[in-house]
């Protein structure tokens, strides 16, 4: 067979080959160690010297031509295969991936952290206080006298008949504990759980969460309190909310206020704000001189403000939770939503 015939035949066979494996096989048949071109080259030394050059040249040309054909076909087949791969997979986007179990933090923890981060960024210290608290810190030092109605056993869990130990009814006892260990100026917050001896229903639980705030320094005023509360709201709701202070009576502040904020959920009244467009958000006030004294701070020299934020209530507002008892229910169907 002449080189031309060989080339012609190979061209046809390569053209017909659709499988990369078969193509490799074919390539070996022509260009392998024992292939057609090798056989042709092996014949050359046997030829007359004058014919060797021409035949050698022909064999080499054939080899190159064949190699080019194989490379071209190989590249074409690879492209075809890639095209097929790219075309073939029409993946169902609605096919669910394997279910992964997810962990998560309690919504109370989430909101507590946000507030801790907000306040620590302004140099507040985060404090902790005991839940089983001395009557002294929970009441006496906070200017709540023995005869004050807040001390009724209807509101307070007492741990002994002598009334020395109670479950703290608010986070405010941390105020005096903080004063005892610090010199003004200072600013602290104290989130934590508190207890009230009351019958439970959808909006009352005997255990809930609060966050106390306390700032003590020289010439701390109502104007500072308003500024700090606006900053707090900005951090909590991500925008400026109009606030109003109105008189509110708490024995450990004087003057005392209720701080209302414009309802962040509506403009014309909704169920959250009971159609008033105001949300009663937190009690606050200037620290009562008797409380400063109980903490070893001279009220003639220093003053301060304090506030108490209802964390459980905030969580309920934020997520529209209609029953406070879900918070401590331990029900995964509830916990998994946060």
């Amino acid at each position, binding site marked *: 067979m002449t080189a031309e015939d060989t080339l012609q035949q190979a061209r046809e066979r390569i053209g017909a080959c659709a499988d990369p494996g078969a193509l490799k096989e074919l390539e070996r048949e022509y260009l392998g160690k024992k292939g057609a071109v090798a056989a042709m080259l092996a014949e050359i030394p046997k030829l007359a010297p004058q014919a060797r050059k021409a035949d050698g040249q022909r064999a080499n040309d054939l080899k190159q031509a064949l190699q080019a054909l194989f490379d071209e076909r190989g590249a074409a087949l690879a492209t075809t295969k890639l095209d097929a791969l790219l075309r073939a997979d029409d993946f169902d986007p609605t096919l669910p991936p394997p279910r992964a*179990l*997810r*962990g*998560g*933090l*309690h919504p*109370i*923890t989430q909101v507590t952290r946000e507030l*801790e981060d907000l306040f620590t960024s302004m*140099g507040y*210290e*985060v404090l*902790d206080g*005991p*839940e*089983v608290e*001395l009557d002294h810190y929970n009441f006496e030092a906070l200017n709540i006298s023995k*005869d004050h*109605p807040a001390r*009724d*056993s209807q509101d307070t*869990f007492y*741990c*002994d008949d002598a009334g020395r*130990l109670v*479950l703290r009814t608010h986070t405010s006892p941390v105020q005096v504990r903080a004063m005892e260990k610090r010199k003004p*100026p200072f*600013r602290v917050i104290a989130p934590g*759980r508190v*207890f009230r*001896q009351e019958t*439970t229903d959808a909006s009352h639980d*005997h*255990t809930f969460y609060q966050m106390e705030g306390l700032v003590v*320094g020289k*010439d701390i*005023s*109502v*104007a*500072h309190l*308003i*500024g700090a509360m606006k900053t707090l709201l900005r951090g909590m709701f991500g925008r400026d909310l109009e606030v*109003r202070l*109105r*008189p*509110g*009576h708490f024995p450990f502040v*004087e*003057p*005392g206020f*209720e701080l209302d904020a414009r309802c962040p959920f509506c403009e014309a009244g909704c169920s959250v704000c009971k159609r008033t467009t105001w949300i009663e958000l937190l009690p606050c006030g*200037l620290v*009562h*001189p008797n409380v400063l004294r109980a903490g070893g701070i001279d009220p003639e020299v220093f*003053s301060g403000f304090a506030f108490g934020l209802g964390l459980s209530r905030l969580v309920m507002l934020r997520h529209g939770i209609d029953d406070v008892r879900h*918070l401590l229910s*331990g*029900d*995964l*169907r509830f916990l998994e939503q946060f």
Partner: protein
Amino acid sequence: MKASLRWLSRHIDLSGLTPETIANDLTLSTAEVEGIERFAPATSDVVVGHVVSRERHPDAEKLSLCRVDVGAGSGPGEALQIVCGAPNVAAGQKVAVAKIGTKLPGDLTIKRSKIRGVESFGMICSARELGVGDDHDGIWVLPENAPLGASVASALALEDFVIEIDNKSLTHRPDLWGHRGLARELAAIYERRLRPLDLAPPATGSGAAYPVAIESPACTRYVALVIDGVRAGRSPEWLRHLLLAVGQRPIDLFVDLSNFVMLDLGQPNHVFDRHRLDALGAGRGIVVRAARASAAETIRTLDGVERKTTPADLLICAGDAPVALAGIMGGDDSKVAPESEALLLEVASFRATTIRRTSSRLGLRTDSSARFEKALDPHLPLAAAGHFARLLQSIAPGVRFPAKPTDVGVWQDPTTTIELRAERVRSALGKPLPASEIRGILERLEFGVEATSVETAGETFRVRVPSFRATKDITMEQDLVEEIGRIHRYGNIAEAPLTFTIAPPARDERRRLVRHLQDRLAGGGRFRENLSYSFIADALLEKLGASDEPHVRVINPVHQGESRIRRTVAPSLLPALEANRRHHTDVRLFEIGKAYEPEASDARGEPRERHYLALAWAGSRPNPKTARWDGSRLQKLQAVVEDLVASFGLARGTWTKDGNPPRWAHPGKSLFLALPGAPHAAAVVAELEPGLAPKLGLAGDLDSEVAVAELCLDALLSAERRGSAYRPLPRYPGIKVDVAVSVPEATRAGELVALVESAGKGQVVDVELFDLYRGKSIGEGRKSLAFHVLLQSDARTLTDQDEQKFLQRFEKLVTEAGGELRKA
């Protein structure tokens, strides 16, 4: 507390002010207004009609057929035909007519209708239907001079708004429990004058004053006024309507007037039947004394309930017979008889705490006790007696006051004087108020203000606190700051930024640890954070067999059997497992919380507080055929705990069985983690005690493999930290060798790891157990453990020879230890 604007208008001119404005201003300056209501709104929708004629209904004996003229330009011939069922309807009456289309309370709309075949074009209303009384005896007959066709509300001057004030925002303000006090606030807010009110006792006869003896310091003043010549009849309409507006049911003249004086001045009072008093007390007069301990005295109060007293209660007695529970409720035996014309008015001052305690012990809270609890102005009794007498005189001109009022008791004028520095007001409010405004506000609130001296340049005042504010609320300079701030309005104070020296708060290791644990568990650990109650149920403790453990207890629990405060946190998670397992195959919960140990109380009596992390992991049991040797939940939870400890940077600890298993733990499968530096085990991980599972409801379909762990945060915080220095990367490749040994069951894995390390002569850098197998090929009572071992040197590349030497040494050690090296 409900306040009627019409009532307030008796004390102050409210013209030009809407109910909404008043409510809003009171909220911002005084006390929270919870709502505004129109009084008897239906009276504005019905009109005055004149019954022109009344005939019997042709077809019903008890019905009347009336023709009613309702004015509005229509002549008498055009009067409405109305069928009426009331027995008291009569021609010539003025009546309240609801015309067609009028809406009445209770969603009733008047329509044209046929009653027994006769058409009716409206309804003649009763007072009850219009919300102005509860008279049952038929239609409301209006005064003859009521203008025809006018709305009943305007014709009878009933138009009124009632604002409801949150009682909680009045606890410190005894002066605001009457309309006069509220009017005083409005006078200060709007800079208007209070109308004068004459409270002096009226002229009396010269008879002997009624005898009153006070035997208890809990009564500080007792005023008694003898009243003759008037019987309890129906009160005038204006009085009835004002009482109705604030939610009081009119009864008769004496009860109504007593209530009116209380709601007007805030001073409770009581009217006795004097003949009954004299009969009960054999003419010995009034004695105020504590109830007797020995006698176990009882008194039947006006509500008909027989009440036992204790020596802490204060009684009003006629002679020796109790006739009233002081300050709370009168007695049934001495109440005014309808025919009686001999009365005694009591107006007294009682100690607030005495009244509060008795009222709270008996669960009997009345309008009277609510006011006495607030510490009332001791000046009030005589003023209130005068008010009562003058009002009675104006209503019943025949009344006689035969004797001067008795006025006994030992009381102090609470009026005080406080020094006020204007500069103090400014620095507390954060606003430069001029001294004149400070002074003006206080004067409007009826405080007396005078500048102390010329030197202070009008910047320091002596402020006289009026007695009605001095009993409780205003005792110091700071209290005056509040008065000025609230009337000036806090909303008029601009916010100011806090300025402080910038310094980051101190590093808080405990909080850092808590956050680390939470994040790690909620993230990679895939646990859900739970918060449970601090109370631990007796029933649970019983299941745990832990009823004997000491607990902090509350003496007044909300729920029976939930008086104890937890001393560790893990038990709190156990009750949640059953409910969650009903809808979850894999339940992973954690909780970080506080627990208390009463036996370790400090000198001040505070129980020791510990902070714990508890973990509970429950799920269905694995198939023993396919389960991996290290697939138990116990071991998985152990891995979670190791991760928590290591990722917080603590030095590596050791797991042992040396510890007291908690009551919830399987004693044979309780593992304790000892950390270097920690005084006691930092963690316990265990399988749930198998006998406990069914008691927790984890049986049958809910049968679960449960592992529980508890970490003591205090121990973690005291544990040593792992070194933080960097280790250079290996310079020479290591050799991986796998070894498997068969050993008796009792041999611990840790012993084998020690043998591997010993055989490696310092070249072992990692040992990992990758299989644990028991089976026939190994033999009864034996097990096989297989390890990946990594040998590596810092000095050179290790060779096959090193591996062979290691294996030879290891085989020797294993054989000595009773094991056998298994050839691959």
